[in-house]
């Protein structure tokens, strides 16, 4: 733990949980311990009413096969929030999960687009989350658009990006202008640093607030209630942060 009294991950969990306010059903993809913890925190803050589906979890309450049902569910408008990431993310919120260089024979090949080209359109509140905040990741223009950040007005698109969370800051996204806006900088980081480490242009108000640190109540909920829940899906993560094992 850093000398702030909380783990950096706990700040991110709190930030994302705030962005999830008002969601009835949050789905979380694979390999997403921080978004997953944020969704479970949101559920605690909402008295358990929020539904959370964590793909790959063995807890029946959260169980989803991550297959046809997941995409159908999104198509029906029954998923309010989801998380996407990218090997590259550009200033128009285009994401690239495919690779670096000229397609198809790229010099670096990542896994592939998974469900992004669909879920980015169908889930109303997509939160982009990428811990690494460098010009290598946050680029001016992605090499391959796995899923576009904005669409022409005639394209049916109930969903799309609402913001981007990194280890340095929180951006909101304005689909009308296709631009990110710096909303807050995490404690210990600066606007100048964010500008230097971001490869795309973004709107930046004259005064950018610090991201609020998680308060004692939030930290207690995360450590006592969320930690044993997320340990089921992400045992290594929960052990490392909180030395907590699965509740299952």
């Amino acid at each position, binding site marked *: 733990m850093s000398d702030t009294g909380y783990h950096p991950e706990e700040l991110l969990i709190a930030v994302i949980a705030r962005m999830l306010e008002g969601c009835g059903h949050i789905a979380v993809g*694979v*390999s997403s311990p921080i978004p997953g913890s944020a969704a479970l925190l949101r559920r605690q803050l909402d008295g358990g009413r929020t539904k959370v589906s964590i793909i*790959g979890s063995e807890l029946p309450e959260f169980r989803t*096969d*991550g*297959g*046809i049902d997941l*995409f159908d569910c999104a*198509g029906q408008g029954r998923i309010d929030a989801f998380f996407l990431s990218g090997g590259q993310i550009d200033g128009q919120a285009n994401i690239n*999960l*495919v*690779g670096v260089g000229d*397609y*198809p*024979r*790229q*010099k*670096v*090949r*990542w*896994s*592939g*687009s*998974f*469900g*992004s*080209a*669909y*879920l*980015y*359109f*169908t889930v109303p509140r997509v939160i982009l989350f990428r811990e690494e905040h460098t010009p290598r990741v946050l680029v001016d223009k992605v090499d*391959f*658009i*796995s*899923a*576009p950040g904005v*669409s*022409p007005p*005639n*394209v*049916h*698109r109930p969903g799309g990006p609402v913001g981007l969370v990194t280890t340095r800051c929180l951006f909101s996204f304005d689909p009308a202008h296709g631009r990110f806006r710096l909303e807050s900088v995490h404690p210990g980081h600066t606007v100048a640093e964010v500008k230097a480490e971001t490869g795309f242009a973004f709107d930046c108000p004259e005064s950018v607030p610090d991201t609020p640190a998680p308060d004692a109540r939030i930290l207690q909920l995360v450590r006592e209630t969320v930690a044993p829940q997320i340990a089921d899906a992400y045992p290594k993560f929960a052990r490392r942060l909180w030395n907590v094992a699965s509740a299952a």
Partner: protein
Amino acid sequence: MTDLLDTDLDALVARIPDGAKLVVFKAEGGAVAMAATRALVRRGTRDLHVVTAPTSGLQADLLIGAGCVATIETSGVTLSEFGQAPRFGAAVKAGSIRIVDSTCPAVYAGLQAGQKGIPFVPLRGLIGSDIVAFRDDYRIIDNPYRQDDPIVAIPAIVPDYALFHVPLADRAGNVWLGRQTELKVLAQAARHSLVTAERLYDGNLLEDDRLAPATVSSLYVDAVAVAPHGAWPYGMTGEYAADEDHMAEYASLAATGEGFAAYLDRYVNGEAAAAAE
């Protein structure tokens, strides 16, 4: 009724000719027919068009590394917590395979179109992605129910063969899918299904009210081989966990061509040698 269980792994995979379009299932839950995949590698099958439903990991990476694959149609190939799929990445870089990028619900939609015998299924999303830009088999059509509403038509995927692993098979050739009910889509979309099963079910799966709902009838099954631990090193829900040490060893060895060759010797060709002893 014919006994469809009279086959071994080698005979099972011998049914798949060079150049076949083969659909395999994603890694979660244990439906990955890894024992059969190793048999396919040993056989030296070539020029496969592998469709991953909708993603893959070690299975696709192994087939690609061993030179069995001409085309891979996928939404993602990854070793998950063990990193990127190394032979897949190397093959893309070398240009030695044709890559057809997709997105998960489009793979499912294409297979569902195959299952229904319809030429396509329309799917929301996708418009403006480079997936659409690089696929000459997708069409953007007009939604006939709304003005100025483009939508992507996903063409039917009709694989020649589906290959997957299930918990149970009976002597009639019915196979119980367990939680992996999407396998029904694969089995019905493909012209032929080849299945490995963890064990034999004594009786008829379709007679059991609790098993029948997730059973694919023998009508869709060409052959079944019993292959205990057939998903290893992947795990299988309710049966055994993934072998994480082995996955890490694969990721480490397959990072280089030499390491991958050593892996093949030890775990693929070596498996046959060990069995023959």
